[in-house]
């Protein structure tokens, strides 16, 4: 009876998550499929009632599913592209890791946020995956969630228009030079 009760609660929890995703999608939230369920389930837990405990087997299943999804992204990379871009890609990965750790250390020194939480909050990995890592590593999930979400959205909001402006400036400079010389 207990396990049936648990199973029903688990189904209700996932239905709530699904509903959260649909609402977030309707409201055009960024990262609706991740953020919607987080908001819906946590709001229910905070304001209405605790849902279910998080069993280890469920954590493992979700982690494996997330790992398979990331791993299959390699299907898009051919061996030739892999070889051609290996050096610059490794350089970028290295800079991002070292840079993220540097920012995490600064964050830890200035604000006193515990170092593992700082690392997981500032490292530029996928937001959902970094939160899963935080959850598995016993870090402060709420802080990682908020800081990763802000980082992801703000970087897009600032860097995309900035990139387009830099490109337009470069292209108009090229056109001017072309007109001048030729």
């Amino acid at each position, binding site marked *: 009876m207990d396990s049936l009760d648990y199973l029903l609660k688990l189904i209700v*929890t996932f239905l*709530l998550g699904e509903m*959260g995703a649909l609402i977030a999608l309707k409201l055009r939230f960024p990262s609706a499929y*991740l953020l919607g*369920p*987080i908001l819906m389930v946590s709001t229910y*837990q*905070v304001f209405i009632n605790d849902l279910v405990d*998080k069993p280890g087997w469920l954590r*493992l299943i*979700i982690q*494996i599913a*997330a*790992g*398979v*999804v*990331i*791993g*299959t992204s*390699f*299907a*898009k*990379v051919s061996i030739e*592209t892999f070889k051609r*871009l290996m*050096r*610059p*890609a490794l*350089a*970028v*990965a290295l*800079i*991002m*890791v070292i*840079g*993220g750790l540097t*920012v995490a250390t600064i964050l830890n020194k*200035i*604000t006193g946020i515990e170092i*593992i939480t700082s690392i997981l*909050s*500032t490292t530029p990995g*996928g937001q959902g*995956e970094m939160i*899963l890592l935080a959850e*598995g590593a016993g870090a*402060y999930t*709420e802080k990682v*969630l*908020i*800081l990763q979400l802000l980082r992801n959205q*703000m970087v*897009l909001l*600032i*860097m*995309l228009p900035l*990139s*387009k402006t*830099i*490109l337009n400036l470069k292209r108009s400079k090229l056109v001017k030079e072309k007109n001048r010389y030729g």
Partner: protein
Amino acid sequence: MAEKINILLVAVITGVVFNYIGVPAGGMIGAMLGTAAIQIRSTSKLVIPIKIRRLVRISMGTFIGLGITAQGIAQVRNLLLPAVISLVGIISISLLTVLILYKIFKFPLAESLLSSIPAGLSELSMNAEEIEADPVVVTTMHIFRLFGIFITIPILIKILH
């Protein structure tokens, strides 16, 4: 079909092993490495349909949501300064990466810029075509970034623990 089932089996086994040996988020890291190692050599690629990807994302969100409590939220205060530090830091790193790709590796400017923005793959791939950058290059660079981070950070966390 058999090859695709093999990929999934390997993912499950590597995920369970990594989890067993105590790697943080070992299920995810193990499955990711197992899948990628087979995918890159395999002729039959396993492509996860978008509906399943969304379902995984929803499950991740639901599971993460279960861990958020009133007590936890009450302790999250004054995140403005950490958010500003994190944002300024990440944007500086991105600009440094643009410079390195453009000056040292002689990437076209459009690809240098998009390959250096640490954000969602789908948003960046969509924008790649708009600003005439090669989406394959941009996607590959970001996949490497994610893999680099997902391999090194769990090891570092394990050491710090």
